[in-house]
């Protein structure tokens, strides 16, 4: 190690005093990570996907009910929202280091912690969506239905977008560099997933409003992808362009963005379009988490982000 850790530079001060020590060549402490990578395992990216889908489905269910859309659309949308919320909660519990203490999440409400706000959003969302579904199934009247469906639609939007805040408002350089883009990206993907999943639940029928929503979502994904790639942040977000995470990220983004747009324009079978978008969104979430792990372990990224 001797001889290459501290490059020598000529003295800079004229007073004969030695210059301040130059920085070592390997970034940080001999190239070791400056930050700790996220400890999250497979459950979390899957949760980002399922939660986004459930949230998107609830947005569609709420608006569809206002627009007096047929029950054949509203009901499967609500079922997706409720089942998605339940699966999301299960995934979040599984991911904990101490799963039996999951209720501690609701011990406090902490606006400084997106994790805390998100736990409350998910709880409220699950309750509201379940109320809407129950009143639709058992004919409990419009008051209870709207008490559920209204909040579920708004909370659904927040459920799909807050995961972007959750990873954006961290010290992980590649995530932090896109803290305003991520909620848009995740939210629009969630909306598209909702539409795609409802279409599949309706027996593979991409009815006109769902088709429009999916088209909007896939166009938004194209724009988001171009926006992220156009605003590269050097070392800070280079993990988005190297390694396994990058492949998943861009592979998924290609499916949800240009591929889905194209399939919609050539009127490909609804099932194919829906599956392309869903699979793309799913692997894109894994890409973001993997890239985040690589980014946090990159000392140059971390030090550059904090200069």
């Amino acid at each position, binding site marked *: 190690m001797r001889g290459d850790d501290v490059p020598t530079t000529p003295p800079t001060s004229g007073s004969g005093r030695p210059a301040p020590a130059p920085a070592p060549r390997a970034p940080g402490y001999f190239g070791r990570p400056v930050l700790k990578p996220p400890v999250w395992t497979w459950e979390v990216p899957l949760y980002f996907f399922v939660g986004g889908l459930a949230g998107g489905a609830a947005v569609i269910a709420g608006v569809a009910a206002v627009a007096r859309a047929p029950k054949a659309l509203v009901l499967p949308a609500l079922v997706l929202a409720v089942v998605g919320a339940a699966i999301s909660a299960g995934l979040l519990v599984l991911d904990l280091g101490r799963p039996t203490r999951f209720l501690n999440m609701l011990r406090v409400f902490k606006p400084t912690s997106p994790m805390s706000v998100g736990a409350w959003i998910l709880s409220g969302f699950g309750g509201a969506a379940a109320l809407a579904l129950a009143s639709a199934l058992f004919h409990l009247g419009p008051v209870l239905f709207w008490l559920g469906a209204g909040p579920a639609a708004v909370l659904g939007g927040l459920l799909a*977008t807050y995961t972007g805040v959750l990873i954006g408002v961290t010290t992980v350089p590649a995530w932090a560099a896109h803290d305003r883009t991520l909620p848009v990206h995740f939210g629009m993907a969630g909306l598209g997933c909702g539409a795609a999943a409802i279409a599949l639940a309706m027996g593979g029928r991409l009815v006109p409003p769902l088709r429009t929503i999916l088209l909007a979502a896939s166009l938004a994904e194209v724009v988001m992808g171009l926006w992220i790639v156009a605003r590269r942040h050097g070392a800070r977000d280079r993990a988005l362009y190297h390694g396994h995470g990058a492949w998943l990220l861009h592979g998924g983004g290609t499916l949800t963005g240009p591929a889905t747009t194209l399939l919609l324009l050539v009127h490909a079978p609804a099932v194919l379009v829906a599956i392309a978008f869903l699979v793309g969104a799913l692997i894109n979430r894994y890409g973001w988490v993997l890239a985040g792990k690589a980014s946090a372990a990159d000392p140059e990224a971390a030090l550059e982000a904090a*200069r």
Partner: protein
Amino acid sequence: MIGDGKDSTNQRENTFVADGTTVGFLTDVTLCIGCKACEVACKEWNGVPDDGYVFTGQSYDNTGALSGSTWRHVQFHELDAPAGREGGGAAPPDDLGWLFYSDVCKHCERAGCLEACPTGAIVRTETGGVFVQDDVCNGCGYCVVGCPFGVIGRRDADLPGGGGAYKCTFCYDRQKGGGGPACAKACPTESIRFGPLDLLRAEADRRVDTLHARGVTGATLYDPRDTSVGGVHALSILVGDPERYGLPRAPEVPSTRLLRSWLSAGLTTAAMLAITALAFALAAR
């Protein structure tokens, strides 16, 4: 305080800290001899489990980094010249140097881990330390990505207390009992000092001046007070660029970006509702 003999807070038999007094660490690389007594004392007192017998091959540092099971970490820097004089012409060319730095949780004035914790497990103690209540922590891991220094870690499930997030407790228990932190007590050179934070800050400034006067012009105090972290309670006297020690020059608390990110989430939610409404309106025509 250096050379205070028995009057030093490290050497006194009892160091009771009055509630409301903000205490701190002052870790001085120019005094550290790399004996790792702090690492050992910390492990012993706090019952921190071993985290694997890893041979890094990097100088004498087989600890590697701070983690959920390493709350003091002594870094070993092998230099081509005595510390603070690299590149200067004063030292003969074959004169080597060492730097040892005992890294620890910074107990930030505004702590990213504390703000990120969704359960309220991480709290501020009455002496200004950042403390994880182990019986509340559910192991969500969000504090890990909230710390700007990569300090706090989630302990592997197979270790004692596994699954929870751990870091330096500032020996909160010893503080309450008048003992002072184990690492400071064990440090034979008083490279680690413990005491009221304002006194340590003043002492650190004096020490840096002394070092400059002695020709160690690279000596600096690491205490990022002009960033959103707002200063640290574990001060460090370093030689050279903080980045050499893996310390960011301008660490920021993630929560400074909360508003803009939530704004984006809120606007996107509105856009999702609007797009959906538009889609149904178009279909109804």
